[in-house]
């Protein structure tokens, strides 16, 4: 049987500390793709919890593109929030 989700992408994002990587993970893992979605998304923490690894698999290229784009926006937003409160982001 052919792979139904052939369009894949993995993004590995290193953080300065495990705490910040974990905060990003906890923030972004909450919004799941709908059960019957044409995109699958998996998040995990790697390298002693300092790298956030996000994996996408989609049925179509354009779906992969839009899912990735929206994730990058939210990833940026959580990182910008950390940067906005440096005293709390140690």
């Amino acid at each position, binding site marked *: 049987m052919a792979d139904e989700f052939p369009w894949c992408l993995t993004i590995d994002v290193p953080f300065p500390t495990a705490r910040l990587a974990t905060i990003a993970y906890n*923030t972004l893992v909450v*919004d799941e793709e709908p059960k019957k979605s044409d995109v699958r998304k998996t998040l995990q923490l790697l390298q002693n919890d300092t790298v956030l690894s996000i994996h996408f698999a989609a049925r179509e290229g354009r779906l992969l593109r839009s899912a990735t784009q929206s994730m990058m*926006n*939210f990833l940026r*937003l959580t990182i*910008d*929030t950390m940067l906005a*409160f440096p005293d709390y982001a140690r």
Partner: protein
Amino acid sequence: MTIAVGFEGSANKLGIGIVRDDGIVLANVRHTFVPPPGEGFLPRDTAKHHQQYVLSLLQQALTSASLKPADIDVICYTKGPGLGAPLVSAAVVARTVAQLWDKPMVAVNHCIGHIEMGRLITGAKDPVVLYVSGGNTQVIAYSMNKYRIFGETIDIAVGNVFDRLARVLNISNDPSPGYNIEQLAKRGTTLLELPYTVKGMDVAFTGIIGKLETLARTNKYTKEDLCFSLQETSFAMLVETTERAMAHTGATEVLIVGGVGCNKRLQEMMEVMVAERNGKLYATDERFCIDNGVMIAWAGLEMFRVGVVTPLRETWCTQRYRTDEVDVTWRD
């Protein structure tokens, strides 16, 4: 003293509010995404707007309240109903600061936020609530730990009719289409006949917008008369159903909440009906009527005080979330 922050971004307004448990509002800041005339707000552009402004708005809220993150006790955010990506944009920041500052979170129903804010600001005790906005039109009364929906629109929200008429007539969306329609309506002189649809406790508005679009296309009628006729007809429908809810529940108070609720003509028409029944009308101005962060902070604070906390893993958003799904455990 407990202090709550509220994040609201379910539609085109992004609001952050800070409130204290004695009901004192410490901050209420808002930034609105205003599309050009003739256009509505699309989810993608609205999310982009929220992402662009949310952090400066948060700083502004903390500064105007003269508070540090350490002074905050609970982080509240809008869970729904609303637009997916805009909701998540506010929630992502709420989740992040909750972890950075090590604070608990409370997920709030947007409609409940409007109601609790209205009760706080006006002091209404147990009113029939008319909730009128761009996405909702409901007549609500509290009973046995639920805000029960007595009547509602069976098609589109009344504010949606205002927003669509503004698009058809190329009226500015700044500060809101409804506000500009209210100003034009003041100079209307002729009442054009529009479909008046009340079915029991429910109302319907697609007939009105359809007819308005047809009338507008003929170029025979002034903007002023179209706006005036919309207000007179749709508000009469809302007053009729609110009166029926008063009769049904025996309530003497009426509270109007939601963006359309800042309309003075609606308040005036409602006041006439309520006065005839020897009741009392409560309404607020645009600071609290229009979507804002305080309403989410206050409703969340009320929930938090009775022990409601939303675990981080469950702080998702949902586009559909009915008013009567929420257990109102903070009221007797």
